C-alpha cells in the first residue's frame, strides 16, 4: 500500500463555483432579455439626440422660420411653435441643458448618497441610525416642493436646480447603498481587513464599494431619469435658468395652449421624455428580473 500513501496535498475540485453577480456581468446577463435591449436602445438614442442634436438642427433654437403655429411642412418638419420657431430644432437643442443638469445632479447625489449609505452600513451603531433617519426626513419632503422652495428663495439658477435635485436624490441612493452594503459588511473579508488594521476609508472605498456597484448602477440609471423628468417639470412650471431657451419642459408649457391647433409643439417633447422614461424603466426591470433569476438559481443549490 505504500503506493497509496504518496504525499500529495492537492485537493479535489469541489462544487462548481457559484455564478458571480458582478455589476457588469449582471448588466451583460440582463441583455439577454428583450426588454433590456429595447430600453437600452431607447435611452441610448435619446441621449445621443440630446448630445449631438444641436449639430443636426436645421435652425437655431430661437430663429423664427415661419408663421407661429404653422403645420409641418418641408421647411419645418414638425411645424413651428407659438413664436414661429422650428419645433424640431428646439427639440434637438432642448435636451442638452436638461441632460447636463440631470447628470450633474445625479453624480452629486451618487457621491453623497454612496458615502452616507456606506458609512451608515459600516458603522453599525448610533451613527447608522442618525444618518438614515436624517435621510428619511429629507425623503419625506416631496422632491418638486423642495426644488420649488429652493428656486423661489435663491432664484432659478442652474446650480440651484442641480443642488435641489441632488438633495432629493441623495437619500434614495443612500438607502440603496446601505442596503447593498449591509450583507457585505458582515462577510469575513471585511473582518480580515479590520484585523490587519486597514484604514476605515480604504475598507469603504476598496472593499465595500466595489461589491455594491451592481445595485448602485441600476439605481443611478433610474435616478437619472427621474432627475430629467424633474428638471423638465420645473421648466414646465417656468423655473428654468433661461425661460425662453430651448428646453423640453419649457416647450410643453409654451405650446400646450395650442395643442389643438399645432399638436407637435408640445407633443414632441412629451414623446421624447416618455420614451426616455420608458427606456430606463425597461432597463431597470430587466436588471431586476435577471437579479431575481440569479437569486432563484442560487436558492436551489
Amino acid at each position, binding site marked *: 500500500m505504500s503506493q*497509496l500513501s504518496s504525499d500529495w496535498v492537492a485537493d*479535489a475540485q*469541489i462544487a462548481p463555483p457559484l455564478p458571480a453577480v458582478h455589476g457588469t456581468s449582471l448588466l451583460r446577463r440582463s441583455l439577454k432579455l428583450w426588454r433590456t435591449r429595447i430600453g437600452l436602445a431607447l435611452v441610448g438614442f435619446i441621449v445621443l439626440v440630446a448630445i449631438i442634436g444641436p449639430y443636426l438642427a436645421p435652425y437655431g433654437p430661437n430663429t423664427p422660420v415661419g408663421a407661429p403655429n404653422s403645420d409641418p411642412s418641408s421647411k419645418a418638419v414638425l411645424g413651428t411653435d407659438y413664436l414661429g420657431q422650428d419645433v424640431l430644432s428646439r427639440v434637438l437643442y432642448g435636451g442638452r441643458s436638461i441632460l447636463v443638469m440631470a447628470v450633474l445632479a445625479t453624480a452629486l447625489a451618487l457621491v453623497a448618497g454612496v458615502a452616507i449609505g456606506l458609512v451608515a452600513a459600516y458603522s453599525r451603531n448610533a451613527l447608522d441610525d442618525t444618518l438614515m433617519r436624517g435621510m428619511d426626513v429629507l425623503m419625506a419632503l416631496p422632491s418638486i416642493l423642495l426644488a420649488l422652495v429652493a428656486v423661489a428663495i435663491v432664484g432659478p439658477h442652474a446650480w440651484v436646480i442641480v443642488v435641489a435635485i441632488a438633495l432629493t436624490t441623495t437619500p434614495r441612493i443612500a438607502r440603496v447603498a446601505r442596503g447593498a452594503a449591509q450583507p457585505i459588511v458582515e462577510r469575513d473579508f471585511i473582518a480580515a481587513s479590520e484585523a490587519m488594521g486597514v484604514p476605515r476609508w480604504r475598507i469603504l472605498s476598496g472593499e465595500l464599494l466595489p461589491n455594491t456597484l451592481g445595485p448602485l448602477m441600476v439605481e443611478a440609471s433610474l435616478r437619472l431619469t427621474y432627475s430629467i423628468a424633474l428638471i423638465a417639470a420645473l421648466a414646465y412650471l417656468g423655473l428654468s435658468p433661461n425661460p425662453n431657451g430651448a428646453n423640453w419642459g419649457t416647450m410643453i408649457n409654451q405650446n400646450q395652449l395650442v395643442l389643438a391647433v399645432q399638436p407637435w409643439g408640445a407633443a414632441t417633447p412629451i414623446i421624447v421624455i416618455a420614451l426616455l422614461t420608458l427606456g430606463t424603466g425597461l432597463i431597470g426591470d430587466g436588471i431586476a428580473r435577471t437579479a431575481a433569476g440569479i437569486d432563484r438559481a442560487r436558492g436551489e443549490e
Partner: protein
Amino acid sequence: MSAAEPAGQTAGPAVSAVAVQDLRIATESTGTPVISEVSFEIARGEIFGVVGESGSGKTTVGLALLGHARRGLRIAGGTVQLGDRDILTLDEDQLRRLRGSLVSYVPQDPASSLNPALRIGTQLREVIEAHGNQPDSGVAERVAEMMREVALPDDRAFLKRYPHELSGGQQQRVGLAMAFANRPRLIVLDEPTTGLDVTTQAHVLSTVRELATLHDVAALYVSHDLAVVATLAERVAVMYAGRVVEIGGAEELFTSAGHPYTRRLVGAIPRLTGGRSLVGIPGHAVSPGRRPPGCSFAPRCTLRIDQCETAMPPLLPVGPGHAVRCIRAEIVLSEAQSRVGDPIDMPAADAAERLPLRLTDVVASYGQNEILHSVSLSLAAHECLALVGESGSGKTTIARAIAGLHRNWTGTIALDGTELPRAARQRSSETRRQIQYIFQNPYGSLNPRQTIGQIVGQPLRVFGTAKGREADRRIADMLERVSLTAAYARRYPDQLSGGERQRVAIARALVCDPTVLICDEVTSALDVSVQAAIVELLGSLQRDLGLSMLFITHNLPLVRSIAQRVAVLSQGNVVELGDTAQVLTDPQQPYTRQLLADTPSLETATSEAMETATSETGASEPPADLAGA
C-alpha cells in the same frame, strides 16, 4: 396508519422496499451523463448510506428516488421500484401524492426547509392533512405523537413556536417528524446533520435509527462524512464521478475496501486513536462531460495501469454483498487498510522557553450576555493548541478577541508579555502583523472583486513589507508554499474550489511571517479529503515556520492529527486542558467524555456498527439540545 400503505400486502415477501436499477441521469441540454449505472436495493428497516465528495452525484441520486431531477437535469433511464410500482414512470400528479406519504425527504439545512412564517404545529398538521387520511379530531393527537417520537416536547406552547425559536437540532427533529409523519416506506436523508454539533448530531442520528427500525422504513442516508455513515448504515455505496465505485457492508468498506478511492477516503478521515498524518487525495474530481473513457478515478489513482484508461471497469463482486468497480481490486484487497497515513512526530512545545500568547481571566460578552467566563489560556512557541467545543461554547469569541475583532471583553491578552489593546485598530501595526487569522468560510473571507494576487498581497501593502517586484515574488512564493501555482495570482476567488480558496486564505495569513496563527474552524466548510489536505498543509507549515497556532474546531478526531495540546470549552469555560493524547484517551471531565462518546468515528463504528441498530431506545432521555433553546 395502514391507510398510508395500500400496496403493503401486494408487495409479497420481497425483502427490499426499494430497488434502484441502472439509474441514469443526464443534463437536459446536451445529454451529458451525470449519473450512470447506479443500482442498489434497500430492505425495510434498513439504513443505506451513500457517500462521496461534493459533485460525486450523491444528492442527485437521493432526489431521483423521489422522482425528482434538479433543474437542468433529467432522469434518462433505469427504474426505481418502490413496492410494485416504478416511481420513474409516474406523472407529476401521482408523484405529488406519493411524496410525503410513501416517500419523504429530509434536506440538509433544517432552517430552510421549514416555513419561517408558520408555527411548527401548523406545519406538522399540514403534512398530515395534505395526505388526508386522518379525521380532523385525530390530527392534534397525531402531532403530539410525532413530537414524542422525535423526543421534542408535545405541549401547546412548544407547538406554537416559530422555526427560528428552535435550535438547529430541534429544527432538524421537526424535519424528521414531518418526514416520518405519514409512515412512509422510504425516507431520503440528505446530510441532515451537517450543520449540527456532535452531541446534537448523535441525538438526531439515534432518532433516525430508532424511527427507521420502529416503523420498518427504508432509509437512504446521503453524506460526505464517512464516520457518520459508518455509525449509522448497515450497507454503503461509495460514489465517484456519478458512478457507484464500491458497494458493500459498512464494516467491510471501512476496514478492507476494494477500491483505491474508498481507501483514500478512509485514509483522509482523522482518527481518535493515534495521531496520524492525514492524506488527501491527489488531483481533481472530473466534472461531467470531461470524464475519461476508462475508470473515472484513474487520473488520480496511484495503482493505475494502462488498462484502467481504456474502458470503464464493471462493478464486480469480490465477496458476499460486496462489489467493486476496479480491475485491480484483488491487489487493493490484499493489502491491509490501516497502512494509510504515517504517524506524525509532533515536536514538544517549549513551554518553558517563551509564551507568545497568554490570555488571563478573559471575560467576553455580546451586549448583556456574558459568553466567556474568565478564560485563561497560553500558547507556547512552536505549539499548536486546539480549542474544541460545541457551537455557542465561545470558541470563536476567544479567537476574535485575540485578533481584536471582538472588543467587548475584560481581562488581559498579552503577546510576548505585552498587554494588547482591545480593538485591532488600537494595536500597533507590528502586533497586527504578528497575529494572523484564518476564517471559517473561505467563500466569505476573500473579496470577490479582487484577484488572488491582490488578496495575498494585501498584508504586504498594509504592513509595508514589500512593494512591486519584491511583493510579486513573495506572493508567488507563498502561493507555491500552499501548493497552488503562481498562475493563480491572476484568478478571481469564484474561479477556485473551496479547498483552493482556503489555501489562498492561508497564504494571505502567512505572507507576512506572523508568529501566532489563529485558525477558526478552517475545514468545516470542506470535504473530508480536502480537509485532510488542508490540515496536512497547516501542520507542516506550522512545524516548518515555527508558528504558534490556535486551532479551533468542533471535530475532535481532527485534533489528534494537528495539535499537541487541547483545551475543551463548554459554555464559556475551559473545562479541560491537557496533552492531546491524554485528553482524548483518558478524559477527566464528564463533559469531555460525553463529547468523545458522541463523536462518530470509524473505530467505534466498525466495531459496533452491526449491533447499534437496536441498542438505543432513548426516546425517554431528554436531548441535550433542549437546554439551549
